[in-house]
């Protein structure tokens, strides 16, 4: 197995995952034999990543902290060919979904995953879900500490946790190690932000009770600064308070955000701190050796510094406009001089956001092997990332991505749309999401125009559960069903940037599916007509308010 620059399973991890596959194989056998009712089987399959969707079973594979090695991505491609229809869908939680799995094949698919130290544990169900992180972790120029060290520590602690496997509702944890939050930590059940205090110590700000869904809320800070070795004790205390006192009478009021909202952040803090006081010195306190051993596995690759400017890159920049735009939108600074972080856009014009065929996954794995230390990241914006690319190699990586259809220079732009699977796949959805994303993406396909419009995040959900994060889109689009007609509600001003996290405000009456593009067009036109120099769409909205946008939209539709 090739060397990786992130956590490698040892025999303990491999054994646990293998035993979990055996257990699930027996559960599937009992279900097929009729020994388990669907009601009894449901939580068992969900905690192994298996959903029953509109047309078939869907398998949601965990990609812990969004980090993949090339051989793992090749295995995902192989699994999607063998057990599915040869493609997969990268999700807003850094997972991969296969939409056409057969129940009887699921144990074999999980066994194939285990061959490359992967699993689908706790990607669904009322338990602690797969932990997400900044997709630039370990490479970002602004990073204080690699958050994936802590994600892995939380992954192990939360896996098959005996006390927290039947929580009131699902529980999502996100961790960032940078002041520029790329992990949306204020809209998770628990968000953890690593920061350095005045004494130079690194610890966590612990944010609890954020979330989207039908009651969007910004999380509250329960602890300004938590010493790192106390993380698991504090998490266990918080989860215990939630498990005991979270509401179970109403599915829609069962998330921790409702508990925090109903009892208040002050009371929540008291409860958690009281619980924590009696466990802080327990076996949960992390020994320095444990932290160091895991941190060592995330040691960054050794990259020799190189000139920050490459003649090849500069020549192509002048020669090819698309390459120049791609450098601006899809290439981010790296902590080592002479390197860059490259985002492969899984949003070519008119395509379903986040989809990749098996051949495309293999192509991405090849590029990672040749130019990015064999490593790939999945972002919550449904793109793939090469974390360690030499600036010198940018032209060849761009050409290779172009052959895969992943070189669209649109990261952060109007066509870099987040969308949930929507009514085409999801049993919960009220409306389609992907076709709406495709229409907007086709309409705004021109790259020069997109770069002129600048940073603009459109997020689309097909129902109130908000898997497409519409509340935090600069433009949010929510599909609703009104007497059997699919309508779309627009909201403006949402944001997940740290310090600016905001829930969008509904613009006005919902519009029909065939008017969504016109409505977005009117929003963009209002911005272009009124923006001041350097202002992004969302800045203009904050300055001038909803009225001018509203007037133009409802005149157009």
């Amino acid at each position: 197995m090739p060397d990786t620059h992130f956590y490698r399973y040892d025999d303990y991890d491999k054994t646990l995952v293998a035993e979990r596959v055996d257990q699930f194989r027996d559960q599937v056998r009992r279900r097929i034999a009729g020994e388990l009712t669907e009601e009894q089987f449901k939580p068992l399959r969900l905690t192994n990543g298996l959903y029953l969707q509109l047309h078939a079973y869907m398998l949601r594979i965990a990609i812990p902290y969004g980090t993949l090695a090339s051989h793992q991505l090749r295995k995902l491609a192989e699994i999607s060919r063998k057990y599915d229809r040869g493609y997969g869908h990268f999700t807003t939680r850094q997972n991969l979904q296969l939409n056409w799995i057969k129940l009887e094949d699921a144990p074999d698919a999980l066994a194939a995953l285990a061959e490359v130290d992967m699993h689908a544990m706790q990607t669904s169900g009322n338990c602690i879900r797969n932990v997400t992180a900044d997709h630039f972790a370990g490479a970002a120029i602004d990073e204080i500490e690699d958050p994936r060290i802590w994600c892995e520590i939380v992954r192990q602690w939360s896996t098959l946790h005996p006390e927290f496997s039947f929580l009131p509702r699902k529980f999502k944890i996100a961790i960032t190690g940078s002041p520029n939050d790329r992990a949306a930590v204020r809209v998770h059940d628990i968000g953890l932000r690593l920061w350095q205090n005045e004494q130079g110590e690194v610890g966590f700000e612990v944010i609890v009770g954020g979330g989207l869904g039908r009651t969007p809320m910004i999380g509250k800070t329960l602890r300004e600064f938590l010493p790192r070795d106390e993380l698991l004790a504090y998490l266990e205390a918080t989860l215990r308070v939630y498990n005991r006192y979270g509401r179970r009478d109403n599915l829609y009021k069962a998330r921790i955000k409702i508990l925090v909202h109903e009892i208040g952040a002050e009371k929540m803090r008291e409860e958690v701190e009281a619980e924590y006081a009696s466990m802080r010195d327990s076996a949960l306190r992390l020994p320095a050796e444990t932290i160091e051993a895991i941190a060592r596995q995330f040691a960054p690759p050794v990259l020799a510094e190189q000139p920050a400017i490459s003649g090849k890159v500069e020549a192509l920049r002048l020669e090819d406009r698309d390459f120049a735009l791609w450098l601006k939108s899809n290439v981010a600074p790296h902590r080592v001089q002479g390197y860059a972080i490259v985002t492969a856009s899984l949003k070519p014009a008119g395509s379903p956001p986040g989809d990749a065929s098996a051949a495309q996954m293999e192509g991405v794995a090849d590029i990672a092997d040749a130019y990015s230390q064999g490593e790939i990241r999945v972002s919550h914006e449904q793109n793939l990332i090469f974390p360690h690319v030499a600036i010198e190699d940018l032209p060849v990586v761009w050409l290779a991505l172009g052959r895969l259809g992943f070189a669209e220079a649109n990261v952060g732009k109007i066509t870099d749309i987040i969308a949930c699977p929507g009514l085409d796949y999801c049993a919960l959805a009220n409306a389609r999401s992907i076709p709406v994303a495709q229409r907007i993406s086709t309409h705004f396909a021109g790259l020069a125009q997109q770069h002129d419009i600048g940073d603009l995040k459109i997020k689309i959900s097909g129902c109130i559960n908000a898997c497409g994060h519409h509340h935090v889109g600069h433009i949010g689009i929510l599909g609703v069903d009104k007497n059997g007609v699919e309508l779309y509600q627009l909201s403006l001003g949402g944001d997940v940037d740290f310090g600016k996290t905001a829930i969008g405000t509904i613009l006005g009456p919902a519009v029909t599916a065939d008017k969504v593009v016109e409505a977005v067009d009117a929003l963009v036109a209002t911005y272009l007509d009124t923006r001041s120099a350097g202002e992004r769409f969302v800045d203009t909205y904050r300055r001038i308010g909803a009225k001018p946008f509203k007037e133009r939209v409802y005149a157009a539709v």
Partner: protein
Amino acid sequence: MPLFSEAGLPASFVPLSFADWQSRPEWPAVSLANTDPVEDLAPHVGRLRLIVLNFPKFSDGRAYSQARLLRGRMGYRGELRATGGVLQDQIPFMLRCGFDSFESDQKGFEEALAKARTLFSVVYQPAEDGRVPASRLRLDHTGPAVG
């Protein structure tokens, strides 16, 4: 409902509801709803022989926390019985939280209980069954056992 026990003969005391037990706290057996304040038993755990915890539905996991508080924080050593929605696939979790007897009418429960402690040879977190988590075992080795 059939009763299964890991620890030999189960206690034969009839448990009182928490409300009734509060007026007779010398009685050695009590049955708690999963909303009853388990902390109130702390001064009495040395005397109690049977505590029954309830799962109104198998998907309602509050009693797992009650069990861990009784075992871990209050040091209760008597019989800890799970009743209500108790299904065989929950046994590994229940054992780890300190339960040692179970009321269940699910077919195959007894065989599942016999196997439950061997389903997973690795655990990742400390709980109430004395098992040593992987993170601690790793410290006893000179390096990680990469397979």
